[in-house]
């Protein structure tokens, strides 16, 4: 905030009192949002469940607890590393080349994001079966490798779209200059491109890491019963042992770890922020030489294996009817079915409504918060670290928090709780995409605009928005996808039929034996995947190339 406040007050209709009002709103909205929907519920949980007994310390000192924390952080680090190792080449290929189907590939990578873990696990298991990896020497079922593969599948979209989107807008001039001066391609990447990408990589890595830290279903199903994480342990202590104190102690430590990491990623982002040179233009080039064709085919092949494989397995299962194939599982989705309070399609309707509401709120709050964050100051740094924490908070903690906090206004059953929780989880995605882009804008541009008499809103509209709109769309798209796919917090909140979402329907369908139920759960998963792919495609086309749209 310090920089903005320090701008000399221009002689314009924008008197200082209005400027102050604007600055206050800009900061107050995100603070109130996180305060009401995250900090307060968490505070209530800790206030009501921590008893300050010696048991808490004893629990933390236990070798098994340490082992759980080590494994949780270890698998999340490995997942993040692997996701970037595989995701960066794909992001690079998609950012660099213009080719037919590019939008479709970019849309496809988002699909995993909305798929419920139960279904993804089933798709992986059936893929392992087809590839002969389900038994014998290369048995991947219930292995750490299976978990890591699934995490890559889930998170690769963050790398491809957030890092890739940033990459597309990077100015090519410095790289070309380095190449002209004799730098090899890899040296130019290492010394010119990579430093410019670091801010966005730090943000994206944090998102992937937090997503992997709180992974629950995939670890239990693909990793097998021996692999406990902090997330599963919190659940076990709270629900199985009814030891709320132990659960709260673990949640508090989890919170601390996540907060420290968020602050560190923010620091990294700020440190390298000045390095990026963006000109907002689209630098994608045609695939016109043999070497470029080979490169592109390799990149697309990688994407096809990592993302396309499990998706193909899922589609195959959704089409299986009896001993053959057909569309019966899809046509049945509109029918009322026992077990579910509403038809699967109506549940999908709820999911879409919630996703739109959550994405809208996350985008608006994110837009305001990103300006505060970029302006710097203690509030900006605090907001930056705090906004990412919900993503690394266990669903049980958040669910219990809402239960306790919103009892105060008898809002526990409000239909708004679900989209509100989704907006909180969606916010980090908006910030992860937008903040690095805003940081790459030279602050003198904003100063110049302000001195020439533009209101803060106008400055944002003329300077920030054109550059950030692409990132805004990316972030909002992620918020939609995250909301559609969210299961953990949704299932823990108490809700009636009007809050019954598609992932809940899929979970319920898979709770009894029967071909119809399994078939429909797979079909519904394919449908929500398709919906998200279409949304991603539409955003892509509406935006066009080089035209800023929001």
């Amino acid at each position: 905030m310090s920089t903005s406040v320090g701008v000399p007050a221009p002689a314009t209709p924008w008197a200082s009192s209005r400027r102050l009002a604007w600055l206050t709103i800009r900061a107050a909205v995100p603070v109130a949002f996180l305060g009401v929907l995250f900090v307060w519920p968490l505070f209530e949980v800790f206030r009501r469940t921590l008893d300050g007994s010696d048991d808490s310390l004893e629990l933390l000192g236990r070798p098994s607890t340490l082992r759980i924390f080590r494994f949780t952080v270890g698998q999340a680090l490995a997942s993040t590393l692997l996701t970037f190792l595989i995701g960066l080449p794909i992001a690079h290929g998609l950012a660099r080349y213009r080719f037919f189907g590019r939008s479709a590939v970019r849309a496809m990578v988002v699909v995993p994001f909305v798929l419920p873990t139960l279904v993804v696990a089933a798709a992986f298991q059936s893929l392992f079966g087809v590839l002969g990896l389900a038994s014998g020497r290369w048995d991947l079922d219930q292995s750490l490798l299976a978990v890591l593969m699934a995490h890559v599948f889930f998170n690769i979209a963050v790398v491809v779209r957030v890092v890739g989107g940033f990459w597309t807008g990077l100015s090519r001039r410095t790289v070309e200059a380095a190449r002209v001066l004799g730098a090899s391609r890899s040296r130019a990447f290492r010394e010119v491109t990579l430093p410019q990408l670091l801010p966005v990589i730090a943000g994206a890595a944090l998102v992937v890491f937090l997503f992997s830290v709180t992974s629950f279903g995939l670890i239990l199903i693909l990793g097998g019963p021996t692999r406990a994480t902090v997330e599963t342990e919190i659940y076990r202590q709270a629900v199985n042992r009814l030891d709320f104190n132990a659960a709260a102690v673990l949640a508090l430590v989890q919170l601390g770890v996540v907060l420290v990491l968020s602050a560190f990623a923010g620091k990294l982002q700020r440190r390298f922020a000045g390095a990026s040179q963006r000109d907002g233009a689209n630098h994608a080039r045609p695939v016109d030489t043999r070497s470029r064709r080979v490169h592109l085919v390799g990149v697309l092949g990688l994407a096809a294996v990592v993302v396309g494989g499990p998706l193909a397995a899922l589609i195959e299962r959704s089409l299986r009817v009896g001993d053959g194939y057909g569309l019966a599982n899809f046509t049945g989705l509109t029918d009322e079915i026992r077990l579910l309070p509403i038809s699967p399609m109506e549940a999908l309707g709820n999911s879409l409504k919630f996703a739109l509401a959550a994405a809208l709120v996350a985008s608006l709050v994110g837009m305001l918060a990103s300006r505060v964050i970029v302006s710097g100051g203690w509030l900006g740094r605090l907001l930056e670290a705090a906004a990412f924490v919900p993503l690394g908070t266990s669903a049980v903690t958040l669910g219990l928090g809402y239960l306790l906090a919103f009892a105060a206004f008898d809002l526990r059953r409000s239909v708004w709780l679900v989209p509100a929780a989704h907006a909180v989880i969606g916010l980090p995605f908006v910030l992860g995409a937008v903040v690095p882009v805003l940081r790459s804008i030279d602050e003198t541009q904003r100063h110049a605009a302000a001195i020439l008499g533009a209101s803060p809103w106008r400055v944002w509209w003329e300077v920030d928005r054109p550059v950030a709109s692409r990132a805004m769309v990316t972030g909002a798209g992620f918020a939609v996808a995250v909301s559609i796919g969210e299961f953990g917090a949704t299932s823990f909140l108490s809700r009636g039929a009007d809050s019954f979402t598609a992932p809940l329907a899929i979970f319920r369908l898979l709770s009894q034996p029967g071909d119809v139920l399994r078939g429909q759960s797979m079909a519904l998963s394919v449908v929500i995947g398709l919906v998200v792919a279409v949304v991603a495609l539409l955003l892509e086309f509406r935006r066009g190339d080089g035209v800023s749209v929001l």
Partner: protein
Amino acid sequence: MTLSKNLSTASSSPLLKVRSILVACLVMAAACGSTSGPEAAPDASDPETAASSTGTALTLLTHDSFAVSEGTLEAFTEESGIEVEQIAGGDAGELVAKAILTKGQPEGDVLFGIDNTFLQRGLDGDIFAPYESPTLESVPDEFELDAEHRVTPIDVGDVCVNWWTDSLPEEGPPETLADLAKPEYASTFVTQNPETSSPGFAFLLATIDEFGEDGWEQFWTDLRDGGMTVTAGWNDAYYGDFIAGGGDSALVTSYASSPVAEVVFADPPVDAAPTGVLTDSCFRQIEFAGILEGTENVDGAQLLIDFLLSDTFQSDIPLNMFVEPANADVALPEAFTDHGITIDNPRTLTPEEIEANRSDWTDRWVEIVLR
């Protein structure tokens, strides 16, 4: 929303200002509206509002597996004038944990879905108000586990080992629980971790009932050495490792009613279930409903408990939740009489025993099977 650059640079700042204010209001409403939305609690100081809200509306808190046919709860509204809002929130364990945590400020008036494996927790937590429904006459005494009637039995189901009939070993199906430990069965058996799965826990209890404190650990050691598979939850066992879902295990821990569901949800339709049930392995789960302490509408809540035991609700239970009615006067649907199986001597342990030993038993199980 597509605004070209030219349009936006035109002198439209008044419009922009209005928009910015609108946007700010929207965000504020979204962020803070939850504290003052239209769904906020009715003003209790207004006697009319308070009276009508307690008199004509009830909230039924259930686990996620609760399901009824359309019109069933409406039948209650017709006869009593009370609207029922059904709210689900997690599985039975989560439901009970949440009820205990919100004791005194309950989320609803009546809770449905606490079973005998969690019952003691609910009783120890003092979350239920006693009520003896007149309809209890039709419920067998063995289902009434609380002498003080703080909870009322609503339905009964059994957790049993199922088999895939076409893929059994040459020896045929196992006949006793002890048979399962034989290598030919153990190697093709998939069950669930009792720490993360309710049927998994029920099956552990069945083995403790059969082999006793001294014998159950040896049985599980034999199962483990025989090559049994363990999953986290029911669905990854049944739909993952069991043959029904494309896996290669021929035996799975599931429910006595699973063969019925296999027929009801078959596609294309089938005449007989592809699965069978090991009756000696069955552990009985009884699900209860109770009036939550702190409700303002005790009379209405009591009517709702009566309704849950009535023919209308009880006859709707089997094909929705795949458990059997607790009311012995209610007939079972055809799918259950044709394809279901009655478990005459199910295994059981008292709620006190279960709660007192839960952590110890599951800890020892983890030590034996997973370490």
